[in-house]
């Protein structure tokens, strides 16, 4: 049952009087409910529309969803969609191009945290302008106008920077290189690791060793960390132990994304959010000295870490995240255990 919202009526019958009282002290009026919900999360607002019809009206109102949208949303997305909730959900599912097409922007659905992908053109790629080493092409499966194709380099250095002020404060973020192999295939990455780093400009940053090996993903990875999954134990029978570094774990290898590209985690960062500084994310392979190539780089994505990081997300054990990676990259029918490594 709805109660009326009190409104000021200056002057009434027989002298000035204060606004008429609410009808029912027990039921909060709809706009009070909406005000409370605007302090919760998008996830709560969606779930709680199941409470009652009045609650649903409050939970779907523009007042609530406007508070979840980023403050500059009007500049980012044309608001031709009917409701602010629809606008919000659209920003979650369909990243929009910003910064002259150099970056894309979207929201993490449950928590309204900001996500970005820096296009290859927005990155600093050493030798990127030398056509013998890198080529800029347009492909339909990229959200950006151009992607960078690595023909061949010895010195691989890719750096991306983003201003901290663009990110959501008090949030755990992870950065990923988004890439794939060219049709002719990647080479030089299967045994040689690369060094990934994430940190504020001017600091050491967090470094990790990763593999940009696209083939191994297709062939079936053999993480050394035993997980009791029968498929992976077969590595021991094929003498592959010798060529796989013993300390490599599953999250050092690329995973398949929903959009069909691969991604490799470069590192993580907790944004306190109160600085003018920039975050730098980089991929380096400058020690091996050998030629490598055959990759297409779409960009670097930075998005909230949902595994037990952000305050508004239900914590998920990090085991579960890694397992998801194993399962999504696998297709047991395609595993070819008789193939030999180069």
């Amino acid at each position: 049952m709805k109660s009326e919202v009190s409104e000021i009526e200056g002057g009434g019958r027989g002298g000035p009087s204060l606004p008429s009282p609410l009808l029912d002290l027990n039921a909060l009026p709809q706009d009070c409910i909406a005000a409370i919900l605007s302090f919760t999360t998008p996830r709560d607002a969606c779930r709680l529309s199941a409470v009652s019809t009045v609650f649903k009206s409050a939970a779907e109102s523009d007042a609530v969803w406007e508070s979840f949208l980023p403050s500059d949303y009007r500049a980012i997305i044309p608001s031709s969609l009917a409701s602010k909730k629809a606008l919000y959900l659209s920003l979650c599912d369909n990243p929009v191009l910003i910064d002259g097409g150099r970056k894309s922007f979207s929201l993490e659905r449950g928590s309204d945290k900001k996500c970005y992908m820096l296009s290859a053109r927005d990155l600093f790629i050493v030798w990127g302008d030398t056509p013998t080493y890198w080529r800029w092409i347009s492909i339909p499966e990229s959200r950006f106008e151009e992607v960078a194709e690595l023909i061949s380099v010895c010195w691989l250095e890719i750096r991306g920077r983003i201003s901290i002020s663009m990110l959501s404060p008090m949030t755990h973020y992870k950065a990923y290189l988004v890439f794939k192999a060219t049709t002719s295939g990647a080479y030089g990455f299967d045994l040689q690791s690369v060094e990934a780093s994430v940190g504020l400009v001017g600091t050491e940053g967090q470094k990790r060793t990763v593999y940009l090996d696209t083939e191994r993903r297709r062939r079936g990875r053999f993480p050394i960390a035993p997980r009791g999954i029968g498929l992976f134990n077969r590595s021991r029978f094929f003498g592959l132990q010798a060529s796989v570094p013993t300390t490599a774990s599953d999250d050092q290898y690329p995973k398949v994304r929903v959009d069909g590209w691969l991604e490799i985690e470069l590192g993580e960062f907790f944004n306190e959010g109160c600085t003018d500084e920039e975050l730098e994310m980089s991929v380096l392979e400058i020690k091996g000295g050998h030629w490598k190539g055959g990759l297409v780089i779409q960009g670097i994505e930075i998005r909230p870490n949902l595994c037990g990081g952000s305050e508004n997300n239900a914590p998920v054990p990090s085991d579960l995240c890694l397992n998801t990676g194993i399962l999504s990259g696998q297709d047991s029918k395609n595993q070819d255990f008789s193939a030999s490594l180069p």
Partner: protein
Amino acid sequence: MSMAAVETKKITLRTADNHEFEVEEAIAMEFSTIKTFFDENPDASEDTIPLPNVTSKCLSAIIEYCKSHLAFRARETSSSIDEQVRTYDEEFVKARDNESLKELILAANYLNIKALLDMLNQAVADRIKNKSVEYVRRFFGLENDYTPEEEAAIRAENEWAFEGVDPDDD
């Protein structure tokens, strides 16, 4: 006939349960509803203002809140003042049960005290975040007026939002 001007003018408020409160004008002006009323009716300041929607328990808490915040604002801003304000606000809501928070929200909404209302809304939001649909129904005293089919449809549409919700502990 106006009385001799006094330094601190008092306004009398009468609550729903017929208690009268005398408050300094400065505090009454924190209630935007009353401020607007006096702006439009400058001669009415001698009268007792009825607040049929506010209980004495609520009003006395609200008056305490406004007094404290006025005192905070009168001091120079500093990070230690901010810290004290934060602590005061936390204490203000911590001991109150859900019923009294709702009453306070209704009163703050009626009296139109924005800072208090925002603070209370945030406190209630913190109490319902990640809670189940049933918990929130009980919290707000709302009946489920959906048909089983309607409710099932909403739950299916928002399945992702139901994962990892806090279990009800009662």
